[in-house]
C-alpha cells in the first residue's frame, strides 16, 4: 500500500495484540448509520508516482516560456539555486512547529534570524515569525493597531486605508475585521500623482482615527509622500501602518524612518524575498513593529535564551498572546505561520546581503524606467500619473487594457495588470512591472509587441 508499511503479517500480529478480529472492529464505536464507506468516484484509482508526475508535468508545461511583466502584488525575482535546495532539505521540510525547542534549534534559530533581518530591513524593533501573506498581515496589523490604540469609549474605531493600497488587500482586511466593529475608510487617490489625495484624507482630519495605512510603493507602483502622511497621522493620534515591498526597502526609506517619529507597524508580502510566484501561494506575510507593541503582535515569535549550561538557544516565546494558551482572548486565531517560506526568505536575504538586495532594487527600478522610456515612444501610450515609481508603472492606452493583454498573451507575453478590473473608469490603464529578471532584449520584445498592437486599427477583441 502506498506510504503504509504494514505487511499482512504485521496486521495480524497487531490485531492480536489489540485483541480484535479485524481493522473494521476498531471503528465499532462509530454509529452504523455514519459508517457509510462511500465509494469515492472523484478520487482516481491509485496512480503510480510516475503517472502522477507525468500528468502534472504535462499540465505544468502549458505555461512554460511566458515572459512575465505582471506585478500587482506578486513579483518575479531570481532566486539563488541554493535557496530551495536548502529549504527542501527534509529536516526543514518535514518538521512541525518547533514545540520541543531542544530538538528544533535549526528552525528556531533560522526564524530568529528571519525576525532579525525583517526588523532590520524595516528599521523596527522586532518582527514575528511570519503570517499567511501580505494581505492578511495587513489585516492583523489593523487589528493590532486598534488594540494598541483603542477608540475613545463609545466611539467606533476608525482605520484609514487609502485607495492606493492594493485592492485585494483592502478586500481581505474587510473580510477579517468586519466583525470587530471597525470602520474602514478608503479615501481616493490623486488623479495627477497617483498617491493618497490629501484632500480626501483631510475629510478625516478632525475625527478620531486609530490608524492610517500607507503603501510604499502603492498599488500603482507610485511612491507615496510617506513623511507627510506619517506626520499627518501621528499629529492626529493615529498609528501608522506601513505596507511595503521588502525589496524596495533596500533602496527606499524604511517605515521606521518615515516622518518625524516613524511608522509604528510595518507589514507586507514577503514573497519577493525568495519565494516563487507559484500561482499566488504559498507566500508569507511579515509583520514588524516597535517594542511598545510587542505584546499586541499576533503569530509565532522566537526568542533567544540560555540552556541549563548557559549556552545560547532559541524557543517559541511570548506564547501568552496565542490561541493555544489564551483561547478566546488571543491576539489572533493564527496557528501556523509560513515557516518554510520564512526559512526561504532568510536564506535568500543572507545570500543577497545588503548590497545585493539594493542592487536588485536598483536594477528593478532601472529596468522599469528603461521600459517606460521605450513605451513612451509608442503611439497611444502615455503615463497615467506623474512622479516617482519603483518597479511598476501605470500606462494609459488608447485601447482597453484587457484587449491589449489578450493580444500580448497570444505572443506569450504576460503583459501586465488591467487596472480597470478593480478601478472602474480606468479600463484603459495597464500596470506594467519590470524586475531585474528582464534583460534589455526583453524590454525591446515587449515594446515591439505592444507597438504592433497599438498601431493596429480598431479593436482586437
Amino acid at each position, binding site marked *: 500500500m*502506498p*506510504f*503504509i*508499511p504494514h505487511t499482512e503479517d504485521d496486521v495480524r500480529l497487531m490485531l492480536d495484540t*489489540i485483541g480484535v478480529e479485524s*481493522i473494521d472492529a*476498531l471503528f465499532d464505536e*462509530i454509529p452504523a448509520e455514519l459508517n457509510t*464507506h462511500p465509494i*469515492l468516484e*472523484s478520487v482516481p484509482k*491509485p496512480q503510480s*508516482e510516475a503517472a502522477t*508526475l507525468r500528468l*502534472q508535468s504535462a*499540465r*505544468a508545461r*502549458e505555461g512554460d516560456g511566458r515572459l512575465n511583466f505582471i506585478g500587482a502584488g*506578486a513579483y518575479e525575482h531570481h532566486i539563488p539555486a541554493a535557496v530551495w535546495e536548502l529549504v*527542501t532539505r527534509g*529536516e*526543514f*521540510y518535514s*518538521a*512541525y*512547529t518547533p514545540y*520541543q*525547542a*531542544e*530538538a*528544533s*534549534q535549526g528552525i528556531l534559530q533560522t526564524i530568529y534570524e528571519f*525576525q*532579525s533581518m525583517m*526588523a532590520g*530591513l524595516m528599521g523596527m*524593533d522586532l518582527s514575528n515569525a511570519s503570517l*499567511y501573506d*501580505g*494581505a492578511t498581515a495587513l489585516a492583523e496589523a489593523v487589528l493590532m493597531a486598534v488594540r494598541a490604540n483603542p477608540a475613545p469609549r463609545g466611539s467606533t474605531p476608525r482605520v484609514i486605508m487609502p485607495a492606493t493600497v492594493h485592492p*485585494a488587500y483592502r478586500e*481581505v482586511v474587510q473580510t477579517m475585521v*468586519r*466583525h470587530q466593529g471597525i470602520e474602514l475608510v478608503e479615501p481616493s487617490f490623486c488623479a495627477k500623482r497617483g498617491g493618497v489625495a490629501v484632500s480626501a484624507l483631510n475629510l478625516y482630519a478632525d475625527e478620531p482615527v486609530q490608524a492610517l495605512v500607507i503603501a510604499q510603493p502603492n498599488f500603482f507602483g507610485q511612491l507615496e509622500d510617506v513623511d507627510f502622511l506619517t506626520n499627518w497621522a501621528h499629529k492626529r493620534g493615529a498609528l501608522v501602518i506601513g505596507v511595503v515591498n521588502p525589496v524596495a526597502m533596500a533602496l527606499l526609506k524604511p517605515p521606521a524612518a518615515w516622518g518625524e517619529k516613524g511608522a509604528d507597524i510595518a507589514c507586507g508580502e514577503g514573497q519577493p524575498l525568495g519565494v516563487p*510566484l*507559484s*500561482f*499566488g501561494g504559498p507566500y508569507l506575510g511579515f509583520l514588524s513593529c516597535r517594542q511598545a507593541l510587542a505584546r499586541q503582535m499576533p503569530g509565532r515569535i522566537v526568542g*533567544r*535564551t540560555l540552556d*541549563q549550561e548557559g549556552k545560547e538557544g532559541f524557543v517559541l*516565546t*511570548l506564547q501568552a498572546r496565542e*490561541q493555544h494558551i*489564551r483561547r*478566546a482572548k488571543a491576539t489572533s486565531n493564527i*496557528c*501556523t505561520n509560513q515557516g518554510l517560506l520564512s526559512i526561504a526568505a532568510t536564506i535568500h536575504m*543572507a*545570500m543577497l546581503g545588503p548590497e545585493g538586495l539594493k542592487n536588485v532594487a536598483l536594477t528593478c527600478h532601472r529596468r522599469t524606467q528603461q521600459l517606460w522610456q521605450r513605451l513612451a515612444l509608442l503611439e497611444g501610450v502615455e503615463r497615467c500619473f506623474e512622479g516617482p515609481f519603483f518597479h511598476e508603472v501605470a500606462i494609459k492606452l488608447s485601447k482597453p487594457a484587457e484587449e491589449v493583454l489578450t493580444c500580448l498573451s497570444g505572443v506569450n507575453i504576460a503583459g501586465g495588470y488591467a487596472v480597470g478590473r478593480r478601478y472602474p473608469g480606468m479600463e484603459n490603464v495597464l500596470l506594467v512591472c519590470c524586475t531585474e529578471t528582464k534583460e534589455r532584449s526583453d524590454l525591446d520584445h515587449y515594446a515591439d509587441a505592444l507597438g504592433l498592437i497599438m498601431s493596429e486599427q480598431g479593436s482586437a477583441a
Partner: protein
Amino acid sequence: MSVIFESSTPGRINPQHATPLEADEQQAALADLPEALLRQSPTGLPEVSELEVVRHYTKLSQKNYSIDTHFYPLGSCTMKYNPRAANKVAMLPGFLGRHPLDDPHYATGLLHTLFELQEMLREITGMAAISLAPMAGAQGEFAGVAMIRAYHDARGDSARREILVPDASHGTNPATATMCGYVTREVPTNAQGDVDIEALKSMVGPQTAGLMLTNPSTLGVFERSVGLIARIIHDAGGLLYYDGANLNAIAGRVRPGEMGFDAIHINVHKTFATPHGGGGPGAGPVGVSARLQPFLPIPRIVKQGASYALLESADCPQSIGRMGAFGGNIGVLLRAHAYLCMIGRQGVRRVGEYATLNANYLLARLTAAGFKPAYAERRATHEFIITLKAEADAYGLTALNMAKRLLDYGFYAPTIYFPLLVPECLLIEPTETESPEQLDAFVAAMVAIRKEAQESPEFVKNAPYTTPVRRLDETRAARKPDLIWRGPLEQ
C-alpha cells in the same frame, strides 16, 4: 551555533546573484527618486559568502528533528511521511513560475488539477461545495464561522451571539469565534470523553449561532452522540462547524456532511500529507452544506465547458469575501492532489484504518506495559492520551520530563499538556506511515525512561542530554525577550 550575523564581514558580496549596475546606469536609476524617499540607514542584513550561507543553513537543518529523521508522534499534528513526489509536482518550473494574475487560458491544466482536488474534497467530506481559498486550518475555521454568521445575518437572525465549543477543543476554535465577533461558551466533557449532552441542552437557545466540534475529538475518541448533538443544535436554530483536524482518522469511511455538519475545514497537511515545513505553509479548504454555499470565500474555481474560471466577488455577492491577496496556497494544494492520486480512492480510507490500527496497537502495548490511558474504556482513534499523573506524583516523571527524555532516545515527543483537562497528558499519534517495529521501539523507550525515573529522578528531570542544547530557559525568554540579534546574550 553562532547566528549568521556573527559571520558577517563588511563588503563581502555574492555578485553572481545581483550584478551591480554600471555607475552611469545607477545614476540614471537614482535620478528620478527623490532623495527624501531614499534609505539612509543600514539594513543590518549579514554579509556572507554563498559557501558560508550554504554551510550555515545546512548545519542548522541538521539541528532539527523531523519526520525524515525521527519518529514524530506529535498528537493532533499528524506527522506522517510527506511524499517527495508531491514536492516534485509542486516544484515543477511550469507551476512555480506562474503569475497568479496571468491569463487563465494558459493555466487550464493547473486549474483542472485544482478543480479535481475540489471535487475530491467535496466527495470525501460529503459537503455540497468547497472553496480552496483559505491558507491554513485556522483561516478555514475563520471562513467557516464567518459563513455561519453571514447565514444568520442574511436571514436577519442577528440575535445569535454565541458559539459553543467543547472544553477540550483546540484553542483556535474560541479564538476564531472571537474574531468573528462571537462569545464562546465551553461545553463540558463527560467521563467517557463525550460531550455532556445534558449540559449542552441547557446551553443552547436563540442566542446560539453554532457549535464547533472536532470528531474524532481531541481526546482521541469518536464523539458517539454526534447525531444527537447535531439535532440539538439544529433544532435550536444553530449551525454545526466541523473542525477537520482529525478528518484523517475517518476519511473514506464517515463523512462530516452525513454527520450533519454545515461547514468544515480540512487541514491538508494532516489528512493529505503535505509538509508542515516547521510550522507552515498549510492550506485550509472549506466545505459547506447547500445553505452555506452562497457565502463561500472567493475566489472559487468552477468548470465552464472545457475550461475553468475563477469566480470573484462580482460573481458571488453573498461571499464572506477574500481570504488572501490571491487564490490560496496553490503549491500546498498541488501536493495534496498528487498525494490523493497516489493513494487512490481505496487509499483514502486505508489512511484512517492504518492510523487507527497503529494507535490502538501502541495504546495496547503501552497499557500492557503499565501506562495509564485517559479513556481506558474507549477505542483509540488515530491518537490517544496517556496520563502520567501517577508517575509524576510518585517520582517526578511529568509529561514534560518524559517528553524531554524521549528526545535523547531519538524520538520527537508527543503533544504534552493538551487537552488541558487530562493531567500530565501525552497525546500520542503514531500515524499510518510508521512500521510496527518503530512503535515497539517507542514503547521500549517509554518503559526505559520510566525505569530511569524510578531509579534516578534527577537524571530524567535534567534531560535532554544529547540535543544541540540542553533544557532551555523559557521563563527567561518570556521575561527578558530577545527577539532580534544585537550581539551576544548576557548570561
